[in-house]
């Protein structure tokens, strides 16, 4: 799980162009949206693409993502359960 969490942090930084952030800066239990990283609706859509591209998990609409992207840890747990890649 720890390895996946670190991998996910690196991917999030790359895919969302979080240039000035390092994996150490991201608290895996903190909310991804709203406060903290200040991600927006487009970032959520990019995370949906990331889920499919890297882990083979297809989400059908943006609202499905809302629960899964609550934090890096919750995202990692969901990926562990549902990944096909």
């Amino acid at each position, binding site marked *: 799980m720890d390895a996946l969490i670190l991998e996910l942090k690196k991917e999030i930084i790359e895919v969302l*162009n979080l240039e*000035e952030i390092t994996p150490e800066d991201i608290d895996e239990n903190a909310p991804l949206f709203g406060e903290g990283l200040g991600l927006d609706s487009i970032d959520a859509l*990019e995370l949906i693409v990331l889920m499919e591209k890297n882990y083979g998990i297809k989400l059908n609409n943006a609202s499905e993502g809302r629960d899964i992207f609550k934090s890096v840890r919750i995202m990692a747990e969901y990926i562990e359960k549902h990944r096909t890649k």
Partner: protein
Amino acid sequence: MELNVISYSKITNNKVIYKGNEVSIQRTESSWFHDIYRSLKLSYPKFFKMDHLSKAGFLASELLLQEEITDRETPKKDIAILLMNRSASLDDDRMYQKTIQDKENYFPSPAVFVYTLPNIVTGEIAIRNKIMGETSFFVSETFSPKQLYQLSVTAFTDPDIKRVICGWTDYELNNCDVFLLLLSNENKEGIPFTINNINNLYK
């Protein structure tokens, strides 16, 4: 109506100019735009999500407005933004096409698609400075000081508009050609806004 150019900025592939003076940019291994961002000591993480056209236009606007806009929170209804270029959003269009080109590796990118519209750069400048006046974007084969002049003068037809950000913002095939002017109709000190002067300042 008397219009004056009260500020201007220019960014090319190797020069950054503000009000006629070259701005020194600390070069690193990073990209040209990222180096400009750091040299200007900006703090705006959204910058890194932008495409090349928006990055270039945004940076030029940060230079342009540094003395004019000190408050970024209060909505400003008296400023209009009017930009032109030749290549529209072609640079980003290509990037987006790459994400849908390969049927086997087909992952259209929403963040890239957002920038496949040339006027998003006007949106970025507006979001940063809370500018709520008229914004527009025109596509033209070459940079025409005459057309820029006509369109800018027309923007002041709205009595609420006191300042106009206008210019040429083109980025295509790694070539950056960005030139912005800030105009005022409140007779401030500045260079008279004429077709000749646009030409002189652009060179």
